[in-house]
């Protein structure tokens, strides 16, 4: 018991262990075309918007962050706006964004049926087109299935390039996990990696949270990442997905 307390007190420093959401850290797998499109165009002006849709955990937010990151790297102003912000801000928060070179709107389904936000987005899309900026919007369904109130908005989304993001295959998930582990200087055996993917890999966000949790725990406990250790740590903190 005393030993546990001592261990817990040895908290790891909160250094920059954050995994940058860049194009490099995105394992494209079946989504190579979307990545290629965003990547090639992230540095230049481009045509009207892109609409990416897919299930949770298919990497939509990651790609949007990557677009912003790439814009930042060339000194261009960009913005990432998750639409859950609509609960905290009025739709005027979209004013003036057309002056930025990249505008990324995440989880558009969050404002479906909210007329003020839908109208504001219709206007934003029109202004961005007129100003010639790059717009990327994501959602959990194809435009006509989003449940939007305004046909004007659905039609604008469908009028750009629409691409569906697929969930990664197990091997791709493992690769993404290994990539992140390596960035953290973690040795993750194939077996341990497979264990994590199998039990926590339904949603990539969840998988990465699991990795982060075991990483922290192994730092504190000074233990290597064996399957029993992982099971022990995560068993008490995270529910498996199956």
């Amino acid at each position: 018991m005393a030993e546990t307390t001592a261990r817990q007190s040895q908290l790891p420093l909160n250094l920059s262990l954050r995994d940058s959401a860049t194009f490099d850290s995105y394992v494209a797998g079946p989504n190579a075309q979307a990545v290629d499109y965003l990547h090639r165009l992230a540095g230049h002006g481009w045509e009207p918007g892109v609409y990416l849709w897919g299930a949770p955990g298919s990497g939509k937010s990651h790609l949007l962050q990557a677009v912003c990151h790439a814009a930042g790297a060339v000194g261009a102003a960009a913005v990432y706006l998750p639409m859950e912000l609509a609960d905290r801000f009025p739709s005027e928060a979209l004013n003036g964004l057309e002056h930025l070179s990249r505008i990324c709107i995440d989880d558009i389904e969050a404002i479906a049926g909210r007329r003020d936000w839908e109208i504001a987005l219709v206007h934003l899309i029109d202004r961005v087109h007129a100003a010639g900026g790059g717009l990327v919007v994501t959602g959990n369904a194809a435009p006509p299935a989003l449940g939007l109130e305004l046909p004007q908005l659905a039609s604008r989304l469908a009028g750009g390039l629409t691409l569906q993001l697929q969930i990664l295959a197990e091997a791709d998930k493992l690769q993404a996990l290994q990539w992140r582990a390596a960035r953290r200087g973690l040795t993750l055996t194939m077996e341990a990696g497979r264990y994590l993917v199998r039990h926590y890999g339904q949603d990539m966000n969840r998988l990465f949270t699991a990795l982060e949790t075991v990483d922290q725990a192994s730092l504190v406990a000074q233990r290597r990442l064996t399957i029993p250790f992982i099971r022990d740590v995560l068993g008490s903190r995270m529910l498996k997905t199956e």
Partner: protein
Amino acid sequence: MEQTLWQACLDRLESELSEQQLNTWIRPLHALEEDDMLRLLAPNHFVLDWVKEHHLESILGALQQLYPNRNLQVLLEIGSSRKPPAKKAEAAVAGDTTAEESVLEGEAPGGGLNPDFTFDNFVEGKSNQLARAACTQVAQNPGTAYNPLFIYGGTGLGKTHLLHAVGNLLRAHNPAVRVVYQHAEHFVSHMVRALQHNTINQFKHYYRSLDALLIDDIQFFAGKERSQEEFFYTFNTLVEGHQQVILTCDRYPKEVAGLEDRLKSRFGWGLTVAIEPPELETRVAILKSKAQQAGIHLPDEVGFFIAKRIRSNVRELEGALRRVYANSQFTGKPITLAFAKEALSDLLILQDRLVTVDNIQRTVADYYKIRVSELYSNSRLREVARPRQIAMALAKELTNQSLPEIGEAFGGRDHTTVIHACRKVKELQQTDEQIRKDYKNLLETLSD
């Protein structure tokens, strides 16, 4: 040199803030460096306030660490790199008005006109030729030909394109002409701001002194009485002064619920024209024109295939073309029929699965050779009422929409009307061979 200071600051903040904080609040800032002053321009006051409250300290801290020997000042203000910031920093930090938000927004260079939309690149077909002709007339004889000109039709059919085309042509003829394109929603928000800031007289003067006012989507006026009143007076002044007014709407003016009768009747003073969804030949022509503009080689059979499968509107046609082109660029393969089928497969499957009320209305109107707008209308003529009932019954059978939603989609009818229609159509299918056949054909068309 200019950007390096902010760039260095960003690099440092990267290790301090989460990716999302950085991308949502810091990256939208545009930095301008002037001597020992770093001016950070925020796109709007929400970003500005948030940064001030949550991140300014980190920014200052990062700069202090990076440049301990420089006495750097940071000014946060609203603005963008594309236009000079209108206010002094202090004012921008303290207040919330910017050039962007002032009453005279329309005075921005261009009057809100998009030069990309012209008559030259508007593809004409049977479905839109009347509207196009009326717009050309108006652009050549503003204030006298048809005033007001009222254009109505569904989304993505080119109403906005025509408004801009008129504005651009007016300006080409006379660069000094004062023409403003505005979305109805903007008119409303301008008026609200003018009321708040006590500048309603300037607002009135501004709109009433224009040579031409082009207002898009006037259905957004619905239910906004004060705005309607203000617009009513503006409208009267303009039309009486032979200043041109063009309005667009997604439906026939009389069918807009929540719009005052006096406005509806005045909108009908001039000429009212409909834009219908384009027929197949026009859809093919549109695709060819878009492909040509973009420098895409589009074989005829591919154009025909896309046009045949994507029937809804022009915007979605463009979306499909973009998809095919993007796929061909990605794979390096030429655009052939087989390639296009493959590239669009998920879109088409999805479209087939998603039968919408919109789609049903278009298909039924097509089938009976009537206009979609007639389905929304109050007409009780049998040649309109029967197709309307059939469309309602199809909507009930093929979509997940509730009865009130279906009623709403048919010009704001009551749900009992929909129930009645469903019963009637069921009954008629037993007794009327023609109706039975029609219904079966439509069902097949919609679900093939």
